[in-house]
């Protein structure tokens, strides 16, 4: 049984891309087993595939720049009617503004995006982009259950998250590698002995931090990371916000914020995993923060 001459470019490429039927692939694999030269060639192709995919894979997980968010797209010319009436779709019952907000939430929500990407990878070579299926209903709830944004601290934290953590180049001023230096800086600017809260038990490693301007002077913005995801912690000396953790999210705003205060400091944790995630994990984060900026008794 010889397939040597029967395999063409379509077979070889389909084999490497995993897009030919299993029987054909098995026959090709069998023929490769007895042909080291052809096998080396196909192995090299496979390695190329791997490296091409991994080289640019991280782009999918980057937060979208504002100019590419659906809200930034100019709407289609309403004077040009669709060539044929569109089939009514269930999700079109929702009011357009909320729907657009839902899209913003969708594209920026880390979890939703991860789920979508996994789905897309699963269907590689077919549709690839999940455009054939309808909107996941869960995303609609995220937009519908909108909580009006209020609280200056939460606003500032969300703003810091948007500006600094959306920056692909330099998210922090001083990285975790320079923690002693960063700590001295924070203590100097906040005017109090400081400690970097440790969230590693919750799966978040310290990335770094910076000083931000606040209404009562300098504030510390600390950043934690879990893969491509980021968590921000704004620490302020102004003890204004409520003492109970309150989770809020701005209108059409994918960044959820939980804030509380204690020990003369106010804290706001920001996450782009969404308000539900933060509501579940806010208490654990708060417990981990403990009283980080309070004066510590030095143990000799």
């Amino acid at each position, binding site marked *: 049984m010889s397939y040597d001459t029967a395999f*063409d*470019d*379509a077979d070889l*490429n389909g084999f490497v*891309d995993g*897009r030919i039927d299993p029987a054909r692939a098995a026959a090709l694999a069998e023929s490769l087993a007895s*042909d*080291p*030269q052809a*096998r*080396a*060639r196909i*192995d*090299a*192709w496979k*390695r*190329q595939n791997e*490296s*091409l*995919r991994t*080289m*640019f894979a991280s*782009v*999918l997980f*980057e937060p*979208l*720049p504002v*100019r*590419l*968010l*659906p809200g930034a*797209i*100019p*709407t*289609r*010319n309403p004077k*040009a009617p669709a*060539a*044929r009436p*569109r089939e009514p779709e269930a999700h079109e019952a*929702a009011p357009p503004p909320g*729907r*657009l907000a839902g*899209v*913003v939430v*969708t*594209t920026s929500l880390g979890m939703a*995006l991860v789920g*979508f*990407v996994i789905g*897309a990878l699963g269907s590689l*070579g077919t*549709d*690839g*982009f*999940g*455009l*054939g299926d309808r*909107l996941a209903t869960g995303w609609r709830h995220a937009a519908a259950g909108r909580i009006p944004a209020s609280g200056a601290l939460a606003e500032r934290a969300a703003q810091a998250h948007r500006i600094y953590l959306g920056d*692909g180049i330099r998210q922090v001023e001083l990285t975790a590698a320079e923690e002693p230096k960063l700590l001295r800086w924070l203590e100097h600017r906040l005017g109090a002995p400081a400690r970097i809260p440790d969230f590693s038990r919750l799966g978040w490693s310290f990335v770094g931090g910076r000083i931000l301007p606040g209404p009562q002077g300098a504030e510390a913005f600390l950043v934690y990371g879990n893969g491509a995801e980021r968590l921000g912690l704004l620490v302020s000396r102004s003890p204004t916000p409520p003492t109970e953790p309150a989770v809020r999210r701005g209108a059409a705003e994918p960044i959820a914020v939980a804030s509380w205060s204690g020990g003369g400091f106010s804290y706001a944790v920001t996450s782009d995993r969404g308000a539900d995630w933060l509501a579940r994990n806010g208490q654990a984060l708060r417990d981990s923060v403990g009283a980080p900026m309070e004066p510590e008794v030095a143990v000799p």
Partner: protein
Amino acid sequence: MPGFADDIGKLTPHLRRFGRALVRGHGPAAADDLVQETIVLAARADLPKRGPTLAVWCFAALIRLNRLRNRAPLVPEGDPATRPLPFLPKDILRLDALPLELREVLLLTTVAGLAYPQVADVLQVDIAVVFTHLTQARDLLTRADPAAARSTRAGERGRPGGASHLRLVK
């Protein structure tokens, strides 16, 4: 049109990734410029575009825009949108050495993950051309990669009686 916003929203990260792989220098700003232009064009076009059709249309538009840009004279150095990233891995440099039409086929298949018929649609070529170009691109990349080329040659040597067989045929 809300349905369009949904679809384009889902497609945008994929367009960005493909754009990043395709543009000269692989800078995020240059790639996002292409994606933005693509989205604006797609939003302005009158045809009702949804689902996979929209994906094919957008990738085709992005490729056309990139070709135009490649034909344009190089922007003076120092423009952050076109300046290449300072540290490009060797794999990327080898990729950039491929002729553009081969790179387009290879990236549409591997990075964008389009099916072969869709790749053919995007590039407006016959599917047989897609396969030929893919083979060419992959072989050229292998030849440019010293490590892969070595292992291919090792395969040649390892082939039992390979060399003598070739001589006999000659």
